[in-house]
């Protein structure tokens, strides 16, 4: 099988990640007891916290919160920060991981406005500025669209929002591991990350990186292994946000995944993916039966390219590719607003997402199969 669905989860995983998983299934509970096994496990969790903080340009490991995934991280920000009467600005490329919690909050009196992603960064920036109002308490922006691969100017959006004192949350579901993220330089207030995509870790693990944990309320309470006499949740990070036994297996895999990404470098990984998609784009653009929606992959892109075949639904095309041993993802990709942007909300699109392990041969085979399919 040629796997080109890495925007859903990267596959295969690096061998070091597999070893980290198998080596962490049998372990003591980190952060609870004081015996050697518990402290050894806790040390591993702490080292991953330090590593993740450094990876994101933060000096304090206590600003790294381990979660069950990017969606959980997003929910923690939206529900831990907003209250009735607050207004939020989002891009019109957001995933349902953002839009559904926001919709739930709108029933409690939170309103939102979608700023359209423009033809260029200036237009996008202007659309975000125009969407702000005096009640805006948070701006949410995906760094790379999970449908179209469009890379948004999140650093400039953040700088503009900070002029008005508005914090910014970045959905880095598709960007972590392929774009360097430095929260200190960029000023991002919250960054939400899945471990299992560009960081090559395990599913069911995520990160919420917070510049100022005091501003955020906790939405989950429970045992933390600290201040246990008190019924109130500790008010300091990460304990404030992390209750219950941590996902030691996922955290161990994340640690190995970050090592893998750092050993290659985000720029090289992204360049590899863009080069593959650029080659595919060149071939598809010469095929009169293929519909492309975005400009040729380049600096304003991540490793995702979506298309359709004329007179075929995206599901038909993906099913055909699957029958020929090629895994891609069709449909709406849980991002209906992003599809509305290009008018594909009723047909979806076929998404191709390579990883560092994808090859030119994979793309050549995909193109050959598509050529036969569209004859």
């Amino acid at each position: 099988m040629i796997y080109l669905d890495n925007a859903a989860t990267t596959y295969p995983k690096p061998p070091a990640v597999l070893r980290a998983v198998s080596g962490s299934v049998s372990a003591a509970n980190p952060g609870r007891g004081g015996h050697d096994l518990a402290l050894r496990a806790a040390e591993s969790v702490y080292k991953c916290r330090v590593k993740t903080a450094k990876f994101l340009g933060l000096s304090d490991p206590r600003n790294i919160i381990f979660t069950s995934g990017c969606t959980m991280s997003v929910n923690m920000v939206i529900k831990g920060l907003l209250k009735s009467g607050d207004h939020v600005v989002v891009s019109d490329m957001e995933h349902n991981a953002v839009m559904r919690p926001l919709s739930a909050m709108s029933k409690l009196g939170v309103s939102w406005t979608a700023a359209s992603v423009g033809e260029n960064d200036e237009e996008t920036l202007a659309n975000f500025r125009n969407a702000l109002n005096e009640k805006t308490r948070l701006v949410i922006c995906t760094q790379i669209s999970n449908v179209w691969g469009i890379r948004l100017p999140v650093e400039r959006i953040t700088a503009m929002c900070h002029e008005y004192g508005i914090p910014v949350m970045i959905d880095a579901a598709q960007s972590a591991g392929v774009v360097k993220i430095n929260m200190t330089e960029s000023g991002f207030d919250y960054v939400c990350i899945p471990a299992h995509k560009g960081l090559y870790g395990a599913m069911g693990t995520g990160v919420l990186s917070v510049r100022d944990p005091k501003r955020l309320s906790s939405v989950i309470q429970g045992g933390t292994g600290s201040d246990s006499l008190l019924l109130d949740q500790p008010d300091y990070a990460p304990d404030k946000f992390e209750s219950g036994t941590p996902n030691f297996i996922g955290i161990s895999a994340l640690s190995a995944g970050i090592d893998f990404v750092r050993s290659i470098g985000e720029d090289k990984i992204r360049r590899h993916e863009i080069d593959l998609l650029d080659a595919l784009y060149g071939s598809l653009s010469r095929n009169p039966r293929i519909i492309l929606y975005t400009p040729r992959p380049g600096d304003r892109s991540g490793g995702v390219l979506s298309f359709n075949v004329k007179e075929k639904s995206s599901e038909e095309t993906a099913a055909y590719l699957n029958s020929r041993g090629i895994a891609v993802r069709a449909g709406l990709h849980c991002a209906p607003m992003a599809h509305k942007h290009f008018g594909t909300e009723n047909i979806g699109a076929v998404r191709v997402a390579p990883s560092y392990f994808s090859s030119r041969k994979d793309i050549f085979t995909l193109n050959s199969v598509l050529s036969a399919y569209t004859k």
Partner: protein
Amino acid sequence: MERERIIEMRSLTDAMAARDALYARGIKSVVTRSKKSRSGCGYALTVNGDVSAARRVLSSMGFGGRT
């Protein structure tokens, strides 16, 4: 004497971060379970060196010790 070398910390992550911060300033310490904890689940640093200096460093860096 042993007890004087111990700085109780509010959490395990704090204890490990404090240990690293002290090490960066030339003060060695190890993370231990506090035998005198009054908060239920207590972790502490056992300092191998100038405890007063360690307390001052941690206080200036905003670590939530239970000293």
